[in-house]
């Protein structure tokens, strides 16, 4: 297994290389640059700036230099906010996104699994349709609608929770719910499907015939197989929760990496964009690897290839 993990980790390198190449040339070929018109700088200052950030060299040379720096763990200086390097910006902003993402994941797993498993126990009854209707609502109401509506109801009208911020524990409740609910909806649907399939199998009938309690049948015997689709979904989902919280960070004014990235993209902060993309891509690859390992652990028939 260790060999498998090492091989997968080595496989990250070419993938990240291709992504860096695509994004590098994509943002460079587009018109406009980080030191464009809207800032009043003289030609001389501009030339100095470009020399400092090595923007005056031919494009392919810049590309190879960038790759060389990345190989040495240096993502370069930020154009827009030169007070820190890109790596420092990521280290500064990412923990917030990570924390928010993990709360969102907790909400998604707890709500989603409870709803999905409950629904699967008595298919096509009220206890099935009820949770599944909520799941559909969770998928169809985007988080940039859900978030403001929650704020409107719980914060502004009832005054129970703060409108925005990221300091106290109560600040984190609404963002976590807003972020987690759509994923909870998918998890509910996936776990219902997975559980229904497992619950119809012979070994479950055997377990029931042995006289085991229903709780034991469901939680000990069926759950392990039934949550497989959820585990497969968790890879992209976790990555999405941690990286894709632009809207939630925007609504609740949370100083995370997502809002930082949107700003960087708007200001053509080349190094910041590339650095964040590479960082997010590495995270996604890592979560996919973790999911594959978890699947092999849950289902011994899965082999390491």
């Amino acid at each position, binding site marked *: 297994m260790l060999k498998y993990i090492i091989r997968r980790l080595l496989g990250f390198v070419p*993938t990240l290389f*291709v*992504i860096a190449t*695509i*994004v590098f040339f*994509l*943002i460079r070929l*587009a018109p*406009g640059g980080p030191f464009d018109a809207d800032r009043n700088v003289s030609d001389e200052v501009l030339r100095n700036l470009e020399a400092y950030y090595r923007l005056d060299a031919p494009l392919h040379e810049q590309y190879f230099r960038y790759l060389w720096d990345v190989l040495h763990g240096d993502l370069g200086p930020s154009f827009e906010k030169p007070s820190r390097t890109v790596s420092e910006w990521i280290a500064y902003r990412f923990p917030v996104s990570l924390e928010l993402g993990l709360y969102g994941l907790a909400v998604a797993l707890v709500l989603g699994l409870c709803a999905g498993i409950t629904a699967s126990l008595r298919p096509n009854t009220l206890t099935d349709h009820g949770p599944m209707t909520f799941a*559909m*609502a969770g*998928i*169809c*109401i*985007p988080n*940039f*609608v859900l978030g*403001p*509506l929650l*704020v*409107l109801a719980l914060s*502004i009208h009832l005054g129970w929770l703060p409108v925005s911020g990221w300091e106290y524990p109560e600040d984190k409740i609404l963002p976590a719910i807003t972020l987690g609910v759509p994923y909870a909806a*998918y998890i509910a649907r996936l776990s219902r*499907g997975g559980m229904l399939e497992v619950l119809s199998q012979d070994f479950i009938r055997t377990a029931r015939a042995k006289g085991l309690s229903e709780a034991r049948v469901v939680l000990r015997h069926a759950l392990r197989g039934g949550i497989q*689709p959820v585990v*497969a*979904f968790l890879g*992209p989902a976790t*990555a*999405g929760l941690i*990286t*894709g919280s*632009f*809207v939630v960070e*925007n*609504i609740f004014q949370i100083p995370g990496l997502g809002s930082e*990235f*949107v700003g960087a*993209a*708007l200001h*053509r902060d080349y190094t910041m*964009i590339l650095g*964040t*993309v590479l960082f*997010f*891509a590495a995270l*996604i*690859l890592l979560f*996919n690897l973790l999911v594959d390992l978890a699947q092999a652990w849950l289902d011994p028939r899965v082999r390491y290839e």
Partner: protein
Amino acid sequence: MSDAHRPEQDAPPAAGERGASLWRDALVRLRRNHLAVAGLVVLFALLVVSLLTPWIAPYGYEEQDLALGAVPPDSAHWFGTDLLGRDLFTRVLYGGRISLLVGFAATGVSLCVGVLYGAFAGYLGGRTDALMMRFVDILYSLPFVIFVIILTVYFGRNIVLLFMAIGAVEWLTMARIVRGQVMSLRQKEFIEATTVMGLPRRRVLLWHLIPNTLGPIIVYATLTVPRVMLMEAFLSYLGLGVQAPMSSWGLLINEGVQTMENRPWMLIFPSLALSITLFSLNFLGDGLRDALDVRASKD
């Protein structure tokens, strides 16, 4: 799935008395699913309204009435007006046009790219397939929200590029689904028969393989439309998509969020429009999936 393809040698069913084909069965099953039918009806109504918007909208989408300002819904303005006195009902209608346009156009792009790519990979097999799918794997690990943001920021915020950008990232799953289908179909006798008959490969691919993957393609395409619409709304919400004074549900929701404390109607009506549309599409997609008996894919 394979019985959708009937070899020509089969005795053709007598006229007026057609056998229960896959599609007919599916239609019967779909009709029994009330939610899916309701979704279809709502979508059809939406389509008609969108096509007729320039004629039925009570005002122009950029027609301002600064003296009026934002007023709550009344008989003159069914959904109220926004801060510039623009009629919200009109703007929601025009936003619907954009949503549908982007939804269907981007899904079309993703459909073309994904189906052809997946079918080629699955049909050619071997090293070509491995290489092509490796590329898909790499693109999968590209954070795709970020990718679309980069594309829209750098290549202007015009609507054609917007749906090209969304379509360009949404074809991956389609390619995987079609490839899987084609790989399993390739083993079937009727494809072997085409080899025996000496049909050119392009013909086999376009006429015999792809038509037999239509079920999953339709289902997945139906489920892609709401995702794309959501993406458009999301980008417009962030200010990266459709730009004012043009209207879009994402844009309207963003404007609504700014003043939701005092003018909740500005948030509620566009949100409702978007959510109802997404509900309809998802119910229809689920219904089609059950009707065509397509096994749920990974997502």
